[in-house]
């Protein structure tokens, strides 16, 4: 049988063609593998690393702050933060709804935080801190559904003495974009000091944040920790503050608006730095809600304002010892020169009244300080002229910043002819000089400036730089005031308390010998026949007192400014007395140091009474955000202040 085979050659040609086509495609795939694995390999490796590695920021615990005795002013406590990894977020609305349901913040606030987090999408953002246990549990329970959320242990600032140290410690805030650009060590969302010690000593307290690199699987579950770069905790900071005195000052100032500054006049170490009313520092320990922030900013009493460094006050009669020293040094007056006070002085055809209607009679310089005779100083101012007054004020550091480490200090104003021409466009009027002579008119000082000026009066004429950390201030600069001049002025200031006619003679009853000077600076023109207690709160005079002790070898200068306090002797001086007695008196806890001091006469709400223990006020519900217990300003006054800040309502 002959077997006829098919002619397979055409078929084989087609098979060969198919083989060629498939061969080309295989070559294409091989080339693709080459490109992916060899050419683009490193890029894909990075993508794989980004897939599996999560970089968790480890916040550095901020440093502890203590006072001079080692008492804790500022510490940390553990807390839990909620981190968001924006790249993991697949459904933003769902995440937002979950966070809102958790009760972390109102919906619009959550939306704003998510917005912000998505702007730096490659980094995790802190969405909430200070989580409660139920919130931590809820996030943990839903972690399979929300890969983008992670609870993370952290620390939070804790201030045992809260509002008493609020301005001193200052606020934390999220790092600004400019700061981020300037310092690569900072991290988006990181908290940095924004004011007070927290800002001034950010480099000490801040520490260096660390990283934890963890491996996660496709479901966001942490598989292992790969690498840990531990955070470096902030270093502790020991300040010159005396927390006992600071608390005493806060208690004494409860219900008042104003500031207290206490310095060691010998080197400028700050012992007390207080501004009232204060804010609740707990609000700034974490991420502040805008609503709370606006509430604080809109508060007419401006609790965020650090009055000790930033508020400007006419010094009133507290300027008199300074001008007296200047006059003695320059020979404008001698200690023996006298002036007869009739209750008013006629200068330039204008009658300038002494605060005492009948006049003080014949007074020498020391008497004039003891009784705070205005007529004497009107006359002195007239003789000296504004430029000399200004130079005396500048001798004591007024008109320029004291150089304390905390920022935002005001320089105050020492007016003279040059200033008038420049700032006001007209020459200085001679009549204004007379007002400046008693610390009124355009002259303005800050409480801390006043503390520095008085330090120079009592430390042998040295201008110190106030500082909060030992060794920080520049060495004191001599003012060149002769010792005899200073001794005369110091004698006079001792007589303010000890003298039979002294304006602060009520402080003589204290266990501690105090010297100082009262000052009542006018807010409104004096009204005849109206006692200050009858005036509305915001028309009352500011009450000032600068005191120091021990009289022979002063170790503490205390400046007390009570805004609209009305009367220096009965309002400001007792506060200073209380602080000085706390510093130098018998150290028995709970002693009624204020027993001899009459409380402020204007109606204080119940609960704001200052003795024996200043319980936080429950009666006067403060606006949220302001530290509890501080505001006792009558509501009517508040609304008037609010009106004054809002011209359209006038």
């Amino acid at each position, binding site marked *: 049988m002959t*077997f006829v085979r098919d002619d397979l050659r055409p*078929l084989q040609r087609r*098979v060969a063609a198919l083989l060629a086509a498939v061969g080309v*495609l*295989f070559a294409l*795939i091989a080339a693709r593998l080459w490109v*992916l694995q060899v050419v683009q*390999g490193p890029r*894909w490796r990075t993508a794989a690393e980004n*897939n599996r590695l999560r970089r968790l920021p480890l916040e550095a615990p901020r440093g502890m702050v203590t006072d001079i005795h080692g008492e804790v002013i500022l510490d940390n406590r553990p807390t839990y933060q909620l981190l968001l990894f924006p790249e993991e977020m697949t459904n933003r609305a769902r995440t937002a709804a979950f966070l809102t349901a958790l009760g972390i913040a109102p919906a619009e606030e959550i939306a704003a935080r998510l917005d912000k987090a998505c702007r730096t999408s490659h980094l995790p953002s802190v969405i909430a801190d200070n989580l409660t246990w139920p919130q931590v549990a809820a996030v943990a329970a839903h972690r399979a559904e929300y890969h983008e959320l992670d609870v993370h242990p952290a620390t939070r600032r804790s201030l045992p003495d809260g509002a008493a140290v609020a301005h001193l410690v200052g606020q934390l805030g999220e790092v600004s974009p400019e700061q981020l650009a300037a310092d690569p060590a900072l991290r988006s969302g990181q908290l940095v000091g924004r004011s007070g010690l927290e800002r001034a000593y950010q480099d000490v307290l801040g520490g260096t944040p660390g990283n934890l690199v963890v491996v996660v699987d496709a479901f966001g579950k942490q598989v292992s920790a790969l690498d840990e770069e531990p955070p470096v905790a902030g270093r502790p900071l020991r300040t010159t503050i005396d927390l006992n005195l600071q608390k005493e000052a806060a208690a004494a100032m409860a219900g008042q608006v104003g500031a207290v500054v206490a310095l060691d006049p010998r080197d400028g170490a700050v012992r007390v730095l207080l501004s009232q009313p204060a804010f609740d520092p707990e609000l700034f320990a974490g991420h502040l809600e805008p609503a709370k922030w606006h509430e604080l900013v809109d508060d007419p009493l401006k609790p965020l304002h650090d009055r000790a460094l930033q508020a400007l006050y006419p010094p009133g009669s507290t300027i008199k010892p300074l001008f007296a020293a200047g006059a003695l040094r320059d020979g404008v007056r001698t200690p023996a020169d006298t002036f007869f006070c009739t209750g008013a002085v006629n200068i330039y055809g204008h009658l300038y009244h002494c605060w005492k209607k009948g006049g003080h009679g014949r007074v020498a310089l020391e008497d004039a300080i003891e009784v705070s005779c205005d007529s004497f100083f009107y006359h002195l101012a007239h003789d000296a002229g504004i430029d000399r007054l200004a130079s005396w004020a500048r001798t004591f550091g007024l008109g320029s910043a004291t150089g304390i480490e905390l920022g935002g200090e005001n320089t105050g104003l020492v007016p003279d002819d040059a200033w008038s021409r420049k700032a006001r466009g007209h020459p200085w009027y001679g009549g204004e000089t007379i007002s400046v002579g008693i610390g009124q008119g355009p002259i303005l000082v800050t409480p801390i400036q006043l503390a520095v000026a008085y330090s120079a009066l009592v430390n042998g004429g040295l201008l110190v730089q106030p500082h909060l950390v030992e060794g920080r201030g520049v060495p004191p600069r001599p003012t060149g005031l002769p010792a005899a001049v200073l001794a005369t002025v110091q004698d006079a200031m001792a007589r303010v308390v000890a003298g039979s006619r002294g304006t602060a003679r009520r402080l003589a009853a204290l266990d501690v010998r105090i010297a100082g000077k009262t000052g009542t600076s006018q807010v409104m023109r004096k009204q005849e026949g109206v006692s200050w207690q009858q005036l509305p709160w915001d028309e009352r005079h500011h009450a000032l007192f600068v005191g120091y002790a021990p009289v022979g070898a002063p170790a503490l200068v205390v400046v007390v400014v009570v805004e609209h306090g009305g009367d220096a002797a009965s309002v400001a001086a007792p506060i200073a007395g209380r602080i000085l007695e706390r510093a130098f008196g018998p150290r028995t806890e709970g002693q009624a140091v204020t027993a001899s001091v009459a409380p402020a006469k204007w109606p204080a709400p119940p609960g704001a009474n200052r003795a024996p223990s200043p319980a936080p006020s429950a009666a006067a519900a403060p606006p949220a955000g302001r530290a509890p217990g501080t505001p006792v300003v009558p509501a009517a006054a508040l609304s008037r202040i609010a009106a004054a800040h809002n011209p359209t309502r006038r």
Partner: protein
Amino acid sequence: MRKLDPWLLLAALAISVGSYLAQSSTAKALATPGFANRQIVWLAVGGVLILLFAFTDYRVLARLSPFLYVASIGVLAAMFVIAPVRAGTHRWLLFGSFTVQPSDFARIATILAVAALAGEHRNDLLDLRTVARLAAMVGVPALLVLLQPDLGTAVTFGPILLAALWLGGLPWRAWVGLALAGLVVVACAWFWVLRPYQQERILTFVDPDRAPYSSGYQQRQSKIAVGSGEVTGKGLQSGTQSQLRFLPAQYTDFIFAVWAEETGFVGSALLLAAYALMVYRVFVIALSARDRVGAIFAGCAAAVLGTQILVNVGMVTGLAPTTGITLPLLSYGGSSVVATCIVLGILQSIWRLRYANI
């Protein structure tokens, strides 16, 4: 044994070794240690089947092909009734703990039937009647599989018809007509056959940024896995993409990505070379077959294997849309391994009998 093609056996063996190593890796990643061992069992069964079919006369199978074909169509049609719905499809039959995918075997029957039909046709060019019969022969099982629905397997029926038509011979005018018809079919398929998720996959392939977290996600993770293997790979069982489960469907459709990630370009090129050798030898078998039936069977088998390899690796490397086509021998699955081995056995039979006179 001497009569068998050693190169084809060597290629299959090399791929089997790679399969075990890659499957061990995914078994570790997915914490399913049994998978790699079962794959080895299937590969061993496959080896036995290769020999069994190698020493069977493929011409007998070709003669039986009408019965085999009708039986497999019957099973495919019955699938809609007897196969439980799993993962939304009637794709698998359950025998105890085993699952069998009949479409893999129906494909062999289809290739055999097509080869037998086209092989009987002795003219240089196919006539219209034969073309229509071939189209129906491939179209019916492909449609049944598509309706299960199983797009990936259905797509692998396409190259059978195209290869049969190409090898059987068509005038160039017919190819133009076929191209137009193909366009119409693709358009109809788009609007009436493809499910929204399948449409989405193709759209995502065209525009990967369309949905980075859904269907684009799989392909992106796959490209990351392959690319991050770089030249020498991350080491067996040390691929982060597979071990941390970023890779989807690791032990089936994306198994090549596991291998490429862990062995790098060196390993993936070697594996691709093994596949190239396998397909090349199948073409050689087609060229040396003693008759038209054998040549067309081998040609169609080469086209199917080539398509599976090229589309799967293309999908893994981002050159083709995700279609769910498995990689022969490497992907996990008894049906897939056994079916591939049966085809390889038949091919060995064609090679063994290439000089046979009767």
